[in-house]
């Protein structure tokens, strides 16, 4: 890995994911196909690590996002809140080939946040009285039941940012932010692909969403199409 004046910048997505080993847990940013780290996901498909656990709100679609790793048989377990648009996923899940932990979206976000923030577990009302709470500790606060949920720390985090610098400071754009800052904080090794790699000092300190200390590797994302899952246009 490059060090010194280049800081955390690595030359390619392939180099950034080279040491992801079989059985690793990954926290992956993105919501649907919005803000997904598509370059590092593609590199990981080529790298071939298997038996991965992927913690991500969704699992892409059949031919994009984490769907690429799923179709390539690299994912053993998904931890997600919504998986409705992926036929490969549905087939693998219903046939029992893929282990799936469905987590309420807010709980998933908070488990990653807690993991990055050193909070081992927390109580939430989401999921009380549903299969989500099965086997988990519940406790009443102010007369309302809550379920104990545990933090998630991942071996690697893959995130996508709009702008980043060699120190790993990141700025996200619009709703592409979503789970990215949470995944970034929850990764032991966080790999950020950035659309614009800017000089240190160029980002306004007030505008930084992910301070650089959460990020271990930065890679310039190659120019490439950002897919749109549901393109809606006004008839104006």
């Amino acid at each position, binding site marked *: 890995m490059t060090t010194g004046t280049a800081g955390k910048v690595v030359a390619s997505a392939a180099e950034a994911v080279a040491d992801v080993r079989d059985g690793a847990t990954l926290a992956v940013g993105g*919501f*649907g*196909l*919005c*803000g997904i780290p598509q370059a590092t996901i593609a590199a990981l498909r080529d790298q071939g690590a298997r038996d991965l656990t992927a913690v991500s*709100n969704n699992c892409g679609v059949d031919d994009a996002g984490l769907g690429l790793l799923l179709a390539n048989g690299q994912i053993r377990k998904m931890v*997600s*809140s*919504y*998986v*409705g*648009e992926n036929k490969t*996923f*549905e087939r693998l*899940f*219903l046939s029992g080939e893929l282990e*799936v932990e*469905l987590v*309420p*979206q*807010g*709980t*998933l*976000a*908070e488990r*990653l*946040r807690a993991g990055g923030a050193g909070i081992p577990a927390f109580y*939430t*009302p*989401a*999921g*009380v*009285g*549903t*299969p*989500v709470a099965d086997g988990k500790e519940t406790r009443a606060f102010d*007369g309302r039941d809550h379920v104990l949920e545990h933090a998630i720390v991942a071996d690697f985090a893959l995130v996508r940012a*709009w702008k980043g610098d060699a120190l790993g400071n990141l700025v*996200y*754009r*619009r*709703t*592409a*932010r*979503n*789970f*990215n*800052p*949470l995944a970034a904080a929850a990764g032991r090794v966080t790999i950020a692909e950035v659309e614009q790699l800017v000089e240190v000092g160029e980002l306004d300190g007030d505008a930084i*969403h992910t301070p650089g200390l959460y990020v271990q590797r930065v890679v310039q994302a190659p120019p490439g199409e*950002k*897919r*749109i*899952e*549901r*393109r*809606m*246009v*006004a008839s*104006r």
Partner: protein
Amino acid sequence: MSATVTPRELIIARAAQEIADGMVVNLGIGMPTLLADVGVARAGVLLQSENGLLGIGPYPTEDEVDPDLINAGKETVTAVAGHAYFDSAESFAMIRGGHVDLAILGGMEVSAGGDLANWMVPGKLVKGMGGAMDLVHGAKRTVVVMEHLSKAGESKVKPACTLPLTGRGVVDRLITDLAVFDLPRAADGSRELVLVETQPGVTVEQVRERTEAEFRVAGADGDSEPVVAS
């Protein structure tokens, strides 16, 4: 132009009346998303999108389409003046923390006790709960919109849900193509199913025939007719 109103159009037209000026509203994916135009047009209403936007605007023009700007249904959208973007933890802090006035969600089944099932059919359909389990506990008010009968013609308003729950005792109001029900909460936390309106041209008797759950009809002693929607 056809004068026929579809069940979904009936439901959406009635649900639109739930959105009052100044509310912060979260619309679930599917049928509730059809209310976005109403929410956008209503004075001071801000639509919250759990993927990290407060202030959803109309669908974009061709020139405005932006892959980085979508709603929770993954549709391209715009943002209104005064909007804010945030991450998913912040989004659910707003939701769980009681800062969202109203959630309008789709349903597969609603029970007489206010239980909601809308995220999976075991062995058949896997969608996931998305943000619904957080929303039903966090939003100040939860309104469910769904067609009264399944495609097989069975009542989706049940004595008890047969599908895995999204939340127990969480539905404040249910709007179907036949009727509007309230589910007031008693002091002991339990809820009761009360018919408060029928859709135009629908009688209370017809609602009874097509509803598996027992319900009370709003009014003194439960005997008087409910308000009929105009």
